[in-house]
């Protein structure tokens, strides 16, 4: 005892550090196979206590160990769900470190669960209301109505059950009063000019295949629902700035930049935040900047519920380049679009292809490279139906012939410099959709 006292008196700081690290290490050891099982533990590299700290960062607290045990005993569902959700958030980070494809399975499992809830919730409650409201309020202008119905025909997807008959009658009407610039074509293939082609890029052989999906992966093969093509298309065309006065841009830090430095900041509304990706976009509060420049924090669902937009632009994909596979990204993206459609039945949805990165990045980074980006862009481009969902690609405006972002346009190889946002603006202004009223 006296010896310990002496040690304490002599080496106080050392004792404090050792005494504090012991309980944390014990917690890490205790939870290693339960609540921290999603984290990588390499004994040679990092101490057990790192698991606890990582957990705290992801909102997995040590006391959840106890809750979990209780939950298992009593088979209490909520606690388990919470636990799983927590694992879900941690797992993608693990893959970001370049985990094997084996490990990437975990996020897929836990991920499908949560979003499905939110999506179905939205489907059940919202869309029906919104749709009916919209119809009631709008003037019985023939053109407007037919437009609506035309779109409706393709987008009952929202989950509202439309009877077979109603569906058919809608289709009949739609063919009669389509906007004059509608093109009729092959339902299997979107004609040229309706969407932007996905820009290809040079492959520098550094890609980590854990972030890709096999080349023969089939993405959207829907023949019905909101993503199906039905043979009616509209072509992209140039517009003026005021086209965006009912547009909402949803995205990550790149969209933050567009809001701060793009010319559309005075026209459009923005909902964006740094580090947002398709996996967390619905869980977090983003910064909303309204049409009049006022701004506040808001979630995606709050925003979509509060206001009606004519166009919704989505730009997500750079933060999740090191998370999961292309197919997982595609699925999440699809769910997000479903949610947007549920709240905004009449909006045009624009899928913006992920902007490429510079040569320096693309030739050295195993996940943030243009090979992964091109594959992911291809996957989301299949969600476009050419009727009310479009794929647009800004890359030709900012990339060289190898598909690399011009070095001069970017300070970090990933974001546009302030002056270069005008190229993004231009790509938006030159690739818009207008339904021209039929005479």
């Amino acid at each position: 005892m006296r010896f310990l006292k002496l040690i304490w008196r002599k080496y106080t700081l050392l004792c404090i550090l050792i005494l504090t690290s012991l309980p944390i290490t014990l917690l890490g050891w205790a939870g290693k196979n339960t609540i921290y099982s999603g984290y990588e533990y390499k004994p040679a590299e990092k101490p057990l206590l790192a698991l606890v700290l990582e957990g705290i960062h992801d909102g997995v607290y040590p006391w959840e160990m106890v809750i979990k045990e209780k939950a298992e005993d009593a088979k209490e569902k909520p606690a388990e769900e919470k636990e799983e959700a927590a694992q879900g958030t941690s797992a993608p980070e693990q893959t970001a470190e370049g985990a094997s494809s084996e490990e990437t399975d975990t996020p897929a499992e836990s991920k499908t669960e949560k979003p499905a809830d939110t999506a179905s919730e939205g489907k059940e409650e919202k869309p029906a209301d919104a749709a009916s409201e919209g119809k009631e309020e709008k003037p019985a202008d023939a053109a407007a109505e037919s437009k609506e119905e035309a779109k409706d025909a393709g987008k009952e997807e929202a989950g509202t059950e439309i009877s077979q008959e109603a569906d058919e009658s809608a289709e009949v009407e739609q063919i009669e009063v389509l906007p004059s610039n509608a093109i009729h074509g092959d339902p299997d293939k979107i004609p040229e000019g309706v969407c932007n082609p996905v820009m290809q890029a040079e492959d520098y052989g550094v890609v980590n295949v854990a972030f890709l999906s096999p080349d023969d992966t089939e993405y959207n093969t829907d023949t019905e629902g909101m993503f199906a093509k039905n043979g009616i298309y509209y072509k992209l065309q140039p517009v003026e700035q005021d086209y965006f006065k009912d547009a909402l841009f949803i995205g990550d830090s790149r969209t933050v930049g567009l809001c701060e430095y793009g010319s559309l900041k005075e026209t459009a509304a923005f909902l964006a935040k740094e580090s947002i990706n398709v996996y967390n976009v619905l869980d977090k509060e983003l910064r909303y900047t309204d049409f009049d420049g006022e701004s506040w924090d808001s979630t995606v669902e709050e925003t979509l519920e509060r206001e009606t937009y004519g166009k919704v632009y989505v730009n997500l994909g750079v933060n999740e380049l090191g998370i999961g596979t292309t197919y997982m990204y595609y699925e999440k993206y699809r769910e997000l679009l479903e949610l947007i459609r549920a709240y905004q039945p009449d909006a045009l949805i624009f899928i913006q292809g992920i902007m490429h990165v510079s040569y320096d990045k693309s030739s050295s980074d195993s996940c943030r490279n243009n090979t992964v980006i091109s594959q992911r862009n291809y996957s989301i481009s299949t969600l476009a139906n050419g009727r009310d969902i479009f794929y647009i690609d800004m890359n030709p405006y900012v990339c060289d012939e190898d598909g690399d972002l011009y070095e001069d346009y970017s300070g970090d190889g990933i974001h546009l410099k302030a002056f270069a946002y005008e190229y993004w603006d231009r790509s938006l202004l030159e690739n818009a959709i207008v339904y021209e009223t039929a005479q």
Partner: protein
Amino acid sequence: MILFNSLKFIFRFFPIFLAVYYLTPARFREIILFFGSIIFYAMGTGRMALALIGLTLINYFLGKLVFSRKTGNVKSSSRKAFIAAMVIDVGSLVLFKVLAGFTRDVVLPLGFSFYLFKMISYQADLFRGEIKRQPEILDTVVYFTMFTQVTQGPIMRYNNVGFEKRERTVSVKAFNDGMFFFVLGLGMKVLVADPLSILWNEISKIGYESISTPLAWMGAVGYSLRLYMDFWGYSLMAAGIGMMLGFHFVVNFMHPYWAYGIADFYRRWHTTLGSWFRDYVYIPLGGSRKGRLRTALNLIVVWLLTGLWHGITPNYLIWAGVLVLLILWEKFVAARLMDALPILGHLHVWFLIPLTWVIFAIPDVNGILSYFQRLFPFFGSGINVNRGDYIKQMINYWPYLGAGLMLCTPHWYRLIVKNRRRMPVMIIMAAVFWISVYRIVIAASNPFMYFSF
């Protein structure tokens, strides 16, 4: 090589090393230190360990020849050996620098030149007879390879590392103080310097031509603080580790931002590098004893070398050139005025040093010009400037800027160092340690944390 501010070092290498070191009888500890150091380098890049061992042995054997000089006349074999050692050491230094400048691959880790600096000083000290006793091989290799000095110095001298007395014992006080300085340095590096480096990254992301003038100044100050905290923090960590092993505390920074003028700043900034250049370049060239013109010329040589040593992009040369001009201006023009009005010297430091760091930070000349146009906007307006950009950055970075500015004054540092053995300070240090470890863990599990898009 592993970084001091990594989990691998803090929780694996160092505790194990310390335990082994102290369980070994004092007279064998140098062997432990040598093998520990080699493991330390080999854990990162094996290449570095090999190059280091090779150069160490060459220098030891050449050093033996250099030492063979008797008092009075210089033996020609000693001179030849000295020249050979210089050719090898300086040659490798130049080679690594040039390779690092031209290839995209990192040939050798950043800190390698510090070893060569040590080797050069060792040979010069031997040649000049400043090392009195024929060094033993173990002392020499330990001196060269000691892991307590990595990427950023301090550059220790053979004489003042304490190799004179053989069996090194560590006092309880020194051990505790070493630990205190390690934690303090860790906090500076991880909690202040690292966040501030993101601010600089934000500014380059926007593009220098598009930042508002307040943000440009914030960036200049932020970058200066970041460099200081990074460098000083790392030096303190190294010094602390040294103390825990029984070496003297090596001073590398003496509150440079409290200096009276630019010349004084560089006497206090990275002093081991500064005094190395003084003792092995400036004074051998004649120092300031051969008239004004020669002094100016010697200063230019020293700064040219300092600039080139940092890198071979034009900004380092401009940086060094500007500093020479400022130092000459102080020395020959403003000296009397500055003596009369010490605040003038302070103002020099606070106003001009951040501007010189901006030059240091931006590799291309056009970038430097754009940045200065934003700092002094009367030379033209920026492109697509968002006038309110600094507000957003201020909201994010004021705590780090504030902490950095506080540590620029000697007062806070002295206060905390003076009370380092008191309980409240120890509790604060424990908190600093854990918050730092937390940040390191998060950064390690998510390498993109600092650059989340």
